[in-house]
């Protein structure tokens, strides 16, 4: 069964003034354990699609199902709760909480979920070890390099074992070495935990690792390729 099902998705911004058609009827299915990149030129609609898949935005038309739940039927509060328990996020600008340490940033989602302090500390430390950044547990984001911050962001996304992880241009601010390390890490997590990753990217290095590449142009999915990697 598909984890993510997008059916005939349309997204129009500024409907009342000068409408911008960001998505024009996208159909998409993503299975559990996929390592998928959504690619396309700037303004093609890939970030809009990622936002809709991530429950950050809702389609103007069409439906988005996550394991059978139609996100359009959820209230604003239910949607926030849904994101908290089902989706992990990795952002281009890392977006860690600057005043918290690496460990606290990783624990943060678990705390929002109401996990006990002992349990969340244990799980956060485990995942920090897995992403090989445990020695920086007491460092704040400002004391970490871009690559290290992105590792913490990945740890934060993974720690609650979400159904899938949305990563919007995760390598855009990283140098080649950090990019390679991060992609290797994500691939490892994908294989180890069967975590589904969906990227929006124009980074060729990400595309080279992806097993499926969906190309978006002018708000439509124009190409859907799979690779054995």
């Amino acid at each position, binding site marked *: 069964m598909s984890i993510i099902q997008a059916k005939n998705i349309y997204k129009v911004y500024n409907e009342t003034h000068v409408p911008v058609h960001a998505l024009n009827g996208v159909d998409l299915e993503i299975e559990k354990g996929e390592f998928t990149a959504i690619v396309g030129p700037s303004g093609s609609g890939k970030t809009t699609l990622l*936002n809709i898949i*991530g429950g*950050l*935005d809702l389609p103007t038309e069409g439906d988005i199902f996550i394991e059978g739940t139609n996100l359009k039927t959820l209230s604003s*509060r239910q949607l*926030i*709760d849904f*994101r*908290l*328990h089902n989706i992990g*996020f990795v*952002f281009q*600008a890392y*977006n860690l*909480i*600057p*005043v*918290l340490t690496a460990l*606290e940033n990783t*624990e*943060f*989602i678990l*705390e*929002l*979920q109401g996990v006990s302090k002992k349990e969340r500390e244990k799980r956060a430390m485990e995942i920090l070890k897995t992403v090989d950044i445990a020695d920086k547990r007491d460092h704040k984001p400002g004391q970490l390099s871009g690559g290290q911050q992105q590792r913490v962001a990945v740890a*934060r996304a993974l720690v609650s074992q979400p159904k899938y992880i949305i990563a919007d241009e995760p390598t855009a601010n990283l140098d080649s070495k950090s990019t390679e390390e991060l992609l290797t890490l994500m691939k490892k997590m994908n294989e180890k935990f069967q975590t589904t990753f969906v990227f929006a990217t124009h980074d060729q290095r990400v595309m080279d690792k992806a097993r499926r590449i969906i190309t978006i142009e002018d708000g439509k999915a124009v190409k859907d390729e799979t690779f054995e990697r």
Partner: protein
Amino acid sequence: MLLAIAWRNLWRNKLRSSVIFISIAVGIIGAITSVGFMSGMVDQREDAAIANEVSNIQIHNPKFLLNDEAQYMVPGAAQKVSEIEQIPQVKGVSLRLKVTGMAASANAGAGITIRGVNVASELKVSDINQNVIEGTYLTQNARFPAVVGQKLAHKLDLGLGDKIIITLSDSSGTITSGAFQIEGIFKTANDQFDESNVFVKKSDLAKLIGYPNNVGNEIAIRLNSNMDTPMVVNKLDKMMVGDIHSDKIIIQSWDQIQPLLKSMVEMMDYFSYLFLIIIMAALAFAIINTMLMAVMERTREIGMLMALGMNKRKIFNLILLETIFLSIIGAFIGLGVSVLVVHHYAIYGFDLTNAASGLNSFGYSARIFFRVSNEFYFISLILVVIIAIISSISPALKALKLQPATAIRENI
């Protein structure tokens, strides 16, 4: 963790937070010390009025209050005095003979109130003896001694040992005069009182105007604590209910005798809080501005928190906590400094010697001893918290309006 984030967020922009801490602190220091000054001034006036002028409670014949004539005595005064002395809250009771008349010297004359007092009992009721700046208070053995206010002495150009001629009506209504020797000169903070009052021995005055020594037209009662005044008045009302109902006596507390002073005390309380609220309202705008800036600077961060699944209630609480921390730190600094300033001036007083003549003419002392109640400190702190909560609403609502999908792409 919400507490930790809110607390640590405060220190992200130390300069901006410090400006707010200082603003709140200065506002509170300004409000509390001003209130301390004004309360001290009014309290001193109240204390002085009770100690030197009206005591806590007075009992009169109602007709005396209407006509101010010596003949309207308090019925059964001696008996009443001994009954009142039995009340535990009572410090002292003085039966006085109070008469209005004229004082004259070789050079000038003035309208005065002559207070005939029993020295031993008066010392427990009035602090005039402590305000004698030249000579002594009425001594038991001296013949026809008088203690006059400094202002009156200057007006009549009299000094210690000089004779003051007092003219007044006797018991038969005939004008009579007596010469008293000035044994002491007093000075209180109230020039008007000093200019219009002469203290003499009650036995001397009674003899001069033809009354026995055991009668009086005023019973002055001094209590150990002014707080007990309403309770003792109530007790006296019950004790003397018959005389009150038959209009033979009237019992008045100091605030009934000097209603202006009473309303001043009440107004002082009112203005203290009004003053504090105005300052806090002004500070609220600074707090709102700071928190709005903080929210705008952190648009992307708040968007990220929303994206990750932090619900609106928690976002609101985060902004609220941060605002409360910001305000409370400023409040504690302000309260701490205020306590020190008020404590200093409560002990050493705030010297206003340069304005002494003006202040004294209104009955105020030239050295103001600050006073701020613990209640006022506490209410100031509570008010800061309330202002912080109110101030956090606008920035918090702004934060809640953010859309995570757009907020996380903000470049600010």
